[in-house]
């Protein structure tokens, strides 16, 4: 841009204008989300392979899941995506306080999700469903209890990784709250809010896949 114009203070030096900067950030976030798809994809592939081989064990495993808690968590996450979208919306309008409120709500819902998850994990621990030396599964079907242990291994690995992503999301939301409080976001510049929004929706989407695959399929199956 010409020397006699003052650059917007949010414009990084290597970009020609805010529009290029915003498009670049958005493109970058989408590429990152594709890498996340590949990351979870590996775990989903392992799940799929074992489900094909050990179907009955998978049925038994999924029948121990608490559908009510899983369903509540699904609603919680979907609501958190709503509050996140609203946060982006208000950031675009430059309404700092509404933005802050929506970010706080999103975080609260995120922590509610994690809290319910902790309750579920605790339940699994009490029922000896956590893989390792404490694992013990009473089996009454066409499967080996070891196979159910593999189901639980993948359950904890996949929901654990998802929970880790939620925690990282909470960290990102905290950063947004601080930046928002400092007045960093305006109607011209609110890209970080939008980018974190994309990330948060993705994490929500992963759960939308996890919930049916781990809880719902075969839940009423008479193995």
């Amino acid at each position, binding site marked *: 841009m010409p020397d006699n114009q003052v650059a917007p203070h949010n414009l990084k030096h290597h970009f020609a204008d805010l529009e290029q900067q915003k498009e670049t950030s958005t493109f970058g976030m989408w590429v990152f989300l594709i890498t996340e798809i590949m990351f979870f994809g590996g775990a989903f592939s392992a799940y799929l392979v074992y489900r094909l081989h050990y179907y009955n064990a998978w049925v038994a495993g999924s029948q121990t899941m608490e559908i009510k808690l899983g369903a509540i968590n699904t609603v919680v996450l979907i609501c958190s995506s709503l509050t996140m979208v609203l946060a982006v919306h208000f950031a675009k309008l430059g309404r700092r306080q509404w933005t802050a409120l929506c970010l706080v709500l999103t975080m609260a819902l995120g922590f509610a999700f994690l809290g319910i998850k902790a309750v579920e994990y605790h339940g699994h621990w009490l029922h000896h469903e956590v893989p390792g030396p404490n694992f013990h599964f009473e089996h009454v*079907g066409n*499967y*080996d209890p070891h196979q159910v242990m593999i189901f639980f291994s993948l359950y904890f690995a996949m929901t654990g990784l998802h929970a880790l992503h939620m925690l990282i999301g909470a960290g990102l939301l905290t950063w947004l709250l601080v930046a928002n409080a400092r007045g960093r976001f305006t109607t011209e510049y609110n890209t970080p809010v939008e980018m974190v929004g994309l990330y948060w929706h993705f994490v929500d989407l992963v759960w939308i896949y996890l919930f049916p695959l781990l809880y719902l399929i075969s839940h009423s199956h008479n193995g």
Partner: protein
Amino acid sequence: MWEHLPLFPARASTMAGHVDALYFALVAIAAFFTFLVSALILFFAIRYRKGRNPHATQIHGSTALELLWTGIPLAIVMMIFVWSSVIFFMQTRPPKGAMEVYLVGKQWMWKFQHTEGQREINALHVPAGRDVRMIMTSQDVIHSFYVPAFRIKADVLPGRYTTTWFHATTPGHYHLFCAEYCGTQHSGMIGEIVVMDPTEYDKWAASGVDGSLASAGEKSFQHYGCTMCHRADNAGRGPNLTGAFGHTVLLDDGRTVTADESYIRESILNPGAKIVSGFKNIMPTFEGQLSEEEVIGLVAYIKALGNGTANLPLPVSEPNSGAYPVAPKQEGSAAKSDKTTTTPEKGGAAQPAAKP
């Protein structure tokens, strides 16, 4: 001269010649293209060096040339693909009637069991001129059974059987290497294959042996109480295993599987995985109770039941035990029977073995 700088190991199996032929063809093709490219580069570098050609001529390209040097290599590699696939099918399809040797690999030794009963460690005696099929498993980590002179290699895995086969041609001693890294003494897991003249082998196989592998398996079969449920008729709680091996089995969920070594092994160690149609899931698992060698013995015994070489037939039901008559020995497994799901409990002595 070649003894001092050998280019290939001894050719001691029927596959060796095939593999070597393809290999040397590839060496020729690779040498041709390497020399072609090198010669062209050398020639161009000299002919068009700056002193001799001060001005470069800009050439965008030539679609014709691109098609040529895409098409010709593609055609060549497709021919190589077909040739190598033919060889591969030969390598992985053992002929029928091959004699069988079982192998259990462990850190860091090879344990062989012949069906005639001989057990060997690290050295395997085989006859020349006969097809030999190896049925292999590991007790711990992944190993790999590699005999360079035979040009065969197959990984040996825990928890399942893998197979390979060969037809040795020349008597002699040949290296057996473990070719999948398996820990501290991986390079010490070296054995030898001793190929013997066929008559010598038969003498060797018969000597000093307490009984065949199948008879050892039969002892296990009795010892672990398998006869309680598996009888020579359809009256047992479990399927009749006579003639079952090698045939198709109908499972309760509609799938069909072939009763091969892996299926037998799985049925012993993880019986709930596949339930034969018409039977209940009541067989206890023997996981942790049997060594791999004992499992192999049982597999050999069940195979022997299939081809009539077993010493004793399975016990038949008592004449006055219930409503079911003694059925004649059936071809095709008992799995195909239309038995109803209700199996009357047998009274008295016949109780299923206690769950571990």
